[in-house]
């Protein structure tokens, strides 16, 4: 279940709208943010804690460039739909799995694995193929045309659902 948009007041929304990027790198960043938003440092910290607790924020921090930071790979596997949860759990147990989604397709589990180097990825995936008893599609990124998940949140549209 997702949260309701009325759970988020103006301060929550402005925090999200203003600080998906460019969090200040200064000694008291939340104080700097609070000054800009006309709130107190304490309020900003409380709001961020609440948004993290609600699961609306994965974290407050850096997004690393996947190619510069290490190795990563998108992988897909086709599993029986009625056993999907169990297979997803096995995948989640492998170190470095940071995304794992069910999708409507014959290949119904899609996950991203990250590691310090390619070799670890390969080894983990080969091991996982044995665990799952299934072949995994390995789909490394060859060329990036655009990656930016810091898009503007459509608050007005969310009000309507």
């Amino acid at each position, binding site marked *: 279940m*997702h949260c309701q*948009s009325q759970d988020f007041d103006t301060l929550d929304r402005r*925090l*999200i709208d203003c*600080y*998906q990027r*460019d*969090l200040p*790198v200064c*000694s*008291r*960043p*939340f104080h700097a943010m609070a000054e800009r938003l006309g709130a107190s*440092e304490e309020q900003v*910290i409380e709001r961020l804690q609440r948004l*993290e607790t609600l*699961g*609306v*924020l994965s*974290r*407050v*921090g*850096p*997004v690393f460039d996947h190619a*510069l*930071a290490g*190795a*990563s790979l998108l992988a897909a596997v086709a599993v029986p739909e009625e056993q999907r949860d169990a297979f997803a*759990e096995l*995948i*989640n147990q492998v*170190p*470095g799995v*940071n*995304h*794992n*989604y069910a*999708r*409507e397709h014959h*290949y119904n*589990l*899609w996950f991203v694995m990250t590691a*310090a180097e390619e070799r670890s990825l390969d080894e983990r995936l080969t091991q996982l193929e044995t665990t799952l008893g299934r072949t995994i*599609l390995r789909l*490394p*990124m*060859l*060329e*990036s*045309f*655009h*990656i*930016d*998940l810091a*898009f503007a*949140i*459509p608050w007005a*549209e*969310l009000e309507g*659902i």
Partner: protein
Amino acid sequence: MTTPMPLGLESPLALESACQLSESDAHRRLRVLLEQGLPLTPRPWQVLAERCGLEEAEVMACVRRWQEETLIKRLGLVVRHRRLGIDANAMVVWNVPDDQVARVGQSLAQESVVTLCYRRPRRLPEWPFNLFCMIHGVQREQVLAQLELLVHRHGLAEIDHQVLFSQHAYRQCGGRYAPRRSDEHPGA
């Protein structure tokens, strides 16, 4: 005329590499910590500095340098869109002729509704698709309508494609790239 090397600096290289070694380990630890997010306290950089044996100023300088080097692409609130109700998340996969894929990818990437767009290898015969793009929306019908517009605008009607809506997120967190020692949290 050569000046004699002052005592104790006979092997400046060894000294330097020893410093780099300890510096790089502290920085590696900083990356492990940063991948898990900032502590939500008044002085988060100070807390991180204490945890990895650096000074607050060093941590901030290091983060700024990683930003300049684009190792850090962005720094801020990382939103889980599904939790906000932006859960019509379509991964659209296309089978584009190789000599057109760069052009199509670049043009799709210009569209504001396209949040991710990249080329990946085909895995024949199972997987013929070489271009991926993502459209995040609130309503499925609206996402499909946006896709239809894209197909029309970019002349993609002849290009074989499939839409894979996400049904469930089993995990969504940041990448775990920094090498970890056995005593450090694997962080999934």
